[in-house]
């Protein structure tokens, strides 16, 4: 549990969340959401929660980003806000 590493990750996390919600193109929003999931997976690993980190990496970053991209692929890519 390295406090400085933890604080850096948290700052990146907040930045990734804001960017993922504000970017107009849905495909890049999904990918930045994937980055968000990887950052939070790093955070869990740093906090000692290794099982949660593994699940977050596999389920959060891997599969949910994929579902988002599959849906954006089948609907519209640009969003109004």
């Amino acid at each position: 549990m390295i406090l400085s590493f933890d604080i850096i990750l948290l700052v990146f996390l907040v930045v990734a969340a804001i960017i993922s919600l504000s970017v107009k193109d849905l495909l890049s929003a999904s990918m930045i959401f994937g980055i968000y999931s990887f950052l939070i997976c790093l955070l869990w690993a740093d906090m000692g929660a290794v099982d949660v980190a593994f699940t977050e990496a596999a389920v959060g970053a891997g599969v949910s980003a994929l579902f988002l991209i599959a849906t954006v692929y089948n609907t519209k890519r640009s969003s109004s806000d």
Partner: protein
Amino acid sequence: MIAKIYATIAVFITGSLLIYGVSDFPRFGDARSPANAGVEGGAGSISEYYITKSYADTKVPNIVTSVLADYRSYDTMFETVVIFVAGMSIFAILRTFRSGAPLVENFRKDDSFIDGDHQRIIVGTTCRLAVPVVQLFALYVIAHGHHSPGGGFQGGVLLGASYIILALADDLAAALRRLSEARYLMLAAVGIAIYSGLGFLCMLLGQNFLDYGVLEAVFRTDGPEMARSHSMLGVEIGVAATVMAIMFAIYANLASKGTLKKAL
């Protein structure tokens, strides 16, 4: 525009209430906080019991797996039921058996580089090489969940992901040839049947539901602890089967808009 005003008001109220609560929290990382070391007046700290006695009870070094699959296995069973319900809901909502939902042209027309032939060769071969390795690692993750981070869910997702890689490399039909719709729906039900069947078996042998200690007669182990360890592995296998089937089912339905014909 009104939605933004509502949102800011709601967020402001909720945020200030949450922060008002946070001011009362124990210090971050404090080993003697109530959650970590319990409070007098109650039944004693549960997490300290897990840390000190879970190895004696279940012979499983990974405390999270032992709590997940044995102490609170009722929770995990319903977690698997949540995934099964998600798969069934998606099937009920999206799956169409007619020629396909009204095909609204999506944006595939304007960037056609995805279907170039060279893409097929590079991605195809790398995926075909990666799939067996991913599956082998997934089986290791399930089996080795007792000693290292991992277990039913993570292994199941990796197995499902290996089929998804296959679908991305060739096309959905190739993956469906290996894991057809009837088979993955049946596999999902079989997974939960393994889990709750094991629990029901404990009931038949006289103990409460999901009380694995009594299964030492079935597994012929020399003590209830090893029986717990083996039945935890059995439960993890059940969870992995359901998660694998449903993750692939969700991908297949989402990518092909429920027609299971042409996909991503």
